[in-house]
């Protein structure tokens, strides 16, 4: 069962670690100072959440959070491709839409994990949900506000939503060993979580006339495999940057 537990916790942790890094890239570049601070603060939370998930594995005698974060090979990561995507041209609409999709997914996953039969995870989910509420509020407030503002804002949101919706869909890719996890009562099936996520994001997008169409299998194909160790083309560059300091002196004590 420890193998399944590692898959589940790494899927959760790796999403947070990588989006934490991507969101931190906005520091100093936000469109207004308050957004700079917001993304910095959210990024700090996400990185801390990743560390707390890794720690649950460390507590079982598995590697330390630093080893998980900085000393794995690409194929050992279990992140969704959504969080690996770069900040293309630093388009704020793209950043907000990714934040919106990711944080809606976090809400749905953490709500479900509060009921997990794996108690350390249920306890952690309860904690993280209390912190994440501010992220979700930030995300949907901006989407609503910009979705009702200018034609340009609406156009840019639509474009970001159309590009990112299939990636977000694959956040709920079926996990390896998912049947065992569901039978153990750790969490509901990914397909059910995706349904709950759709119920969270679609009414908001519909009210703004921004609802995307559901992606076809063809569209989803290149976005598959994140949970199974297949990385997107953007991962290597991201990981090289994230590990630049730790790999300069691998034995350093921090």
């Amino acid at each position: 069962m420890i193998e399944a537990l590692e898959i589940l916790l790494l899927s959760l942790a790796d999403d947070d670690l990588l989006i934490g890094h991507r969101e931190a890239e906005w520091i100093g570049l936000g469109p207004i100072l308050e957004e700079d601070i917001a993304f910095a603060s959210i990024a700090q939370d996400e990185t801390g959440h990743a560390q707390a998930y890794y720690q649950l594995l460390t507590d079982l005698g598995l590697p330390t959070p630093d080893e998980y974060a900085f000393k794995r090979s690409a194929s050992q990561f279990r992140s969704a491709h959504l969080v690996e995507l770069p900040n293309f041209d630093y388009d704020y609409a793209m950043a907000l839409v990714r934040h919106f999709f990711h944080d809606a997914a976090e809400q749905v996953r953490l709500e479900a994990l509060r009921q997990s039969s794996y108690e350390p995870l249920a306890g952690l989910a309860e904690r993280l949900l209390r912190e994440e509420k501010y992220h979700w509020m930030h995300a949907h407030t901006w989407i609503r506000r910009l979705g009702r503002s200018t034609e340009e804002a609406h156009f840019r949101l639509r474009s970001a939503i159309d590009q990112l919706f299939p990636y977000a869909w694959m956040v709920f890719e079926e996990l390896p060993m998912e049947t065992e996890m569901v039978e153990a009562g750790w969490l509901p099936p990914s397909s059910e979580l995706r349904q709950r996520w759709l119920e969270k994001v679609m009414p908001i997008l519909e009210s703004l006339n921004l609802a995307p169409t559901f992606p076809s299998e063809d569209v989803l194909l290149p976005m598959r495999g994140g949970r199974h160790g297949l990385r997107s083309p953007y991962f290597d560059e991201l990981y090289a940057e994230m590990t630049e300091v730790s790999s300069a002196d691998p034995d350093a004590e921090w």
Partner: protein
Amino acid sequence: MSLQVSADSIREWLRTVPDPEIPHVSVVDMGMIGEIKVSDSQVSVELIPTFAGCPAIKLLQSQIQTLLRERGLEAKVEVRYDRPWRVEDMSPAGWQALRRAGFAIPKKLSPDPSEMLSEVSCPRCGSEAVSLSSPFGPTACRAIFRCHSCGEAFELFKPPL
């Protein structure tokens, strides 16, 4: 040799350890110290971070250990992420210290953050004519507001909800 010290006296000593981000309040009054266990030869202290991403946790761990070592105790400081920090665990002295430090404090601890952020008054002049500049501030537990009566910016102490 068994230790001649009670958990209560250790808790008292820890009142001298400030919250690293809001140094006006001790970690005890912040409700960050959970169970303290004294066994035959060892002390263990539970440390409950307010936010999981708090960067000061390692610092706090070593400050607590140093303080207890100066009093002849070797302590294990166990960081508990697997349960939430609850604002209800703050002491009345903790709330008072926050007020004295110039923070606005939430009037109502609703689980809905937008509700909590919409009922805030200025800690300087008491006016309710305030607006939220940013729900995120210099640390995870602060939000930034502006008062339209006295014109000052201020911070709300923002707990996980």
